[in-house]
């Protein structure tokens, strides 16, 4: 099967279950492709070759003895470096956690393992998930398989790049303000951020606790749906996880008749990239032709979303990252011998500039005398953003718009301008602050010089309407073929 195009999750799992192939072959192929793409992409921080092959052999042994080996039988996947698999280094692409091997396995990883999926690698990312391009990694920048001079998006850069390069059928990222949806858009993938609380955060190393959600990448919506449903459902180790078990997938519909799709004015600003606007409008036209009704809606507080996000997220981060003090794990700097100087030196050497910037910002907005003006006010605006969506959903069933204001930008293009970088998230942050389910999926391409760059459509649903968002995504992918197109590097890797 070495010269074949990469398979999707459902396809490969079906083959393993029917014993047309086996888990060892699937793992070996993924590991081989990983090595082949490694130099070009820099998408991987750690490879669990021995663990992956041992798990694959065990699965094949159980399969041979007639045991049901699960809906994701033998499917190799990759984890973002902020996810815990016992004994496998999860350093968040930070020097401060270099060498850290978690002593436990995340609930969502365990659920995938229980379903037969096989983690093979830990992927590169922006340090502590802070960034939109992958350039904030302490371990080098991840490249986009569609154009190696460009970003695959961030912060889940390595996971997006591995799936786009056809190395693994799916990979996990975490989406705090768009860190899965934006790279999905820039890498021609489906990236799905479920309703906040759908997937337990136990074992996801926190950036901003009230926003973080584990979110999968795959080439098809059907695949991300299966992976999402496998991971979700209440976890007693995360009290913020929704109380209900996994949601059922909505059945395929013949048409979209009766479905109202809200198109927010604020998601099509005058400054929006022309190609992004054009592809998004074409996608909306596809949905309309399929029977959906397009409704103009307004999300008036969207303009404050970025500011609000950078107050709330950095406040939580300043506290969440306090534990990286050199006392219990990670490298410890000596300092002058006092505890205070050990802390200062460890953190000064361990964290990168962007992480420091956000810790300082978050510390500031929580400080006595500034709390009311910044943090408390941000919480109020967050409530207003949520109300915007609630009001919009009185008039429509799903909101649609672009995922990213631009296609993949060149590495280095925005790395000296934090605010320009923050604006990459302008269209994804509102759904994060409101805790809503949001899907990015391929809706076409733009030519830029010699490159053909993907563009993503974003679908946002009301809280808990995960099945509705994913069903619309599946329907759109039946009407379009963009998601089947492979990055140039994927062809090379599969060859």
């Amino acid at each position, binding site marked *: 099967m070495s010269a074949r195009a990469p398979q999707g999750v459902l396809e490969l799992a079906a083959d393993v279950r029917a014993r047309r192939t086996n888990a060892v072959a699937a793992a070996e192929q993924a590991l081989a492709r990983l090595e082949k793409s490694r130099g070009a992409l820099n998408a991987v921080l750690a490879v669990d070759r021995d663990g992956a092959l041992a798990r694959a052999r065990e699965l094949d042994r159980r399969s041979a003895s007639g045991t049901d080996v699960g809906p994701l039988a033998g499917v190799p996947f990759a984890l973002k470096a902020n996810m815990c698999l016992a004994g496998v280094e999860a350093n968040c692409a930070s020097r401060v956690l270099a060498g850290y091997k978690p002593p436990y396995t995340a609930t969502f990883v365990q659920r995938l393992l229980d379903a037969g999926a096989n983690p093979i690698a830990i992927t590169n990312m922006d340090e502590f998930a802070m960034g939109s391009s992958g350039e904030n990694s302490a371990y080098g920048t991840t490249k986009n398989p569609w154009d190696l001079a460009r970003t695959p998006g961030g912060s889940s850069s390595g996971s997006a790049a591995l799936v786009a390069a056809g190395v693994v059928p799916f990979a996990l990222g975490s989406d705090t303000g768009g860190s899965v949806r934006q790279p999905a858009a820039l890498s021609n993938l489906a990236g799905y951020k479920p309703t906040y609380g759908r997937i337990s955060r*136990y074992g996801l190393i926190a950036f901003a606790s009230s926003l973080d959600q584990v979110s999968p990448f795959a080439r098809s919506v059907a695949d991300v749906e299966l992976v999402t449903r496998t991971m979700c459902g209440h976890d007693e180790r995360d009290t913020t996880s929704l109380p209900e078990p996994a949601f059922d997938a909505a059945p395929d519909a013949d048409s979209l008749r009766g479905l109202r799709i809200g198109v927010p004015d604020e998601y099509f600003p005058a400054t929006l990239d022309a190609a992004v606007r054009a592809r998004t409008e074409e996608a909306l036209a596809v949905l309309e032709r399929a029977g959906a009704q397009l409704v103009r809606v307004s999300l008036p507080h969207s303009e404050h979303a970025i500011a609000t996000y950078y107050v709330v997220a950095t406040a939580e981060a300043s506290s969440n990252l306090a534990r990286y003090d050199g006392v219990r794990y990670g490298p410890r700097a000596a300092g002058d011998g006092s505890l205070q100087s050990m802390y200062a030196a460890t953190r000064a050497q361990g964290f990168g500039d962007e992480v420091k910037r956000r810790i300082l910002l978050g510390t500031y907005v929580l400080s*006595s005398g500034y709390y009311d003006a910044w943090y408390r006010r941000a919480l109020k605006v967050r409530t207003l953003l949520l109300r915007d969506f609630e009001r919009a959903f009185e008039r429509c069933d799903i909101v649609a718009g672009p995922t990213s204001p631009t296609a993949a930008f060149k590495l280095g293009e925005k790395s000296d301008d934090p605010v320009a970088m923050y604006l990459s998230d302008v269209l994804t942050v509102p759904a994060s602050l409101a805790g809503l389910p949001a899907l990015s999926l391929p809706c076409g391409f733009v030519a830029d010089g010699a490159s053909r760059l993907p563009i993503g459509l974003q679908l946002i649903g009301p809280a808990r309407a995960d099945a509705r968002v994913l069903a619309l995504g599946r329907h759109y992918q039946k009407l379009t073929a963009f998601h089947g197109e492979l990055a140039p590097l994927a062809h090379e890797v599969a060859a």
Partner: protein
Amino acid sequence: MSTTPATVGSAATAPDPARWKGWIPVIGLEVHCQLKTRTKLFCGCEYRFGAEPNTLTCAVCTAQPGALPVLNREALALAVRAGLALGAEIAPWSKFDRKNYFYCDLPKGYQISQFDRPYCKGGGITLANGHRIRLTRIHLEEDAGKAIHDRGAQTLVDLNRASVPLIESVTEADVRSPEEAHEYLDRLKEILQYAGASDCDMEKGSLRVDVNVSVHRPGEPWRKRVELKNLNSFRNVSAAIEHELARQIAIYESNDPSQQVVQETRLFDAQAGVTRSMRGKEEAHDYRYFPEPDLLPIEIDAAFLAEQRAALGELPEAKRARFQSELGLSEYDAGVLTSSPALSRWFEECARLCGSPKDAANWIQNEILRGLSAEQRPASAIAELRVTPAGLAELIGLAHKGTLNVPGARQVLRAMLETGKGAAALVQELGLEQVSDTGALEQWCREALVGKDKVIADVKAGKEKAIGALVGPVMKASKGKANPQVVTEILLRLVKELP
């Protein structure tokens, strides 16, 4: 804390102002108590004082990246019981907040506590003099680990205690003297022990006290407030307050501008009997409290509240009153026997089984508690003795029936404490049954009367007490087994029968 001087309680009970040269002490107490749960506040680890360092830990309480806290319902239940026992109001909705600061014993870099919405408000304790110490609030929080500095150049960290549940109760500044502080703490400890909420054992760190002390002139605003820490016994709390009051008053009285009372934290040095400055206000932390995003708000419904109210046993005040009215004990005895829940349970069981609360009270106080006190053990250690309430009840019964005299009974009790054997068996073993067989006794009595004409004449002349001189020889003849009362009766009868 309220900003007005305490006005509750009658002025008549207020301490003598002359004691502080006309200055009025203003004292508030902050008490941390460890809740008596099986497991920690946010994880499933158990906690035992004195366990091997870092053996009672997990991913959550060592703050492994990605681990999340989960609220222990038992801790909430005990916290609510503590609040109810102190007459406080339980908030139907409260929340956790993060208190951010760096220290090596604080693994997450923040403590999960409650800031502006504690689970419990109000309540208080009325002292014996009628003065009420009001509680401002009680909140639920996790403990930090322990930094150990006295093992050479390095600081060692033990995270066993990290995330153990605490309640912090904060009083209004209603305390008016070191003695009131001591009494308040005694009563608080007693109530929390009875509520089953905490062991309140200062030696094991399950109760810790911080004190705020200031003074003012009558009718004038309060002066600068000083916080006292490092108080490891109730006696030290009152000693520290005494010293701090004297220090502050001496500074104000000196009228020396080079001396100032500053708002600061001071540590009490119990050996030197002084307080020393630890940190000033300018070094005060900005804890950057904000709502804990990893935990849902705490919602307490009527059913949960009713459950905790039902689980709350009889509190010490009610028990003391009942011991006096129902069991006929003196106020003093009732006070002693309710001083610990274990002791009061032991006493009540024994009193019920022997049917004589007064005897049970006397035996426990005169024999058992005295023994414990001689060994410097607390009264609550009664539950660990080899004698059970049923054992003592049996002994009391034997003494009642006349099988044993008092010295014999004491001897049996000592043997019971040593061997754990039953009273009846020991009476046999030690050959201590009282001889009440009148045949044998009469014989010894007749022998005792021989040649005692003076005594016989005195008795016949109406001085019956004179017979006492003959009881001793009879007891001696019986080797201590005779019942002295029966002996006296026989002797008197025999004298009367004499011509």
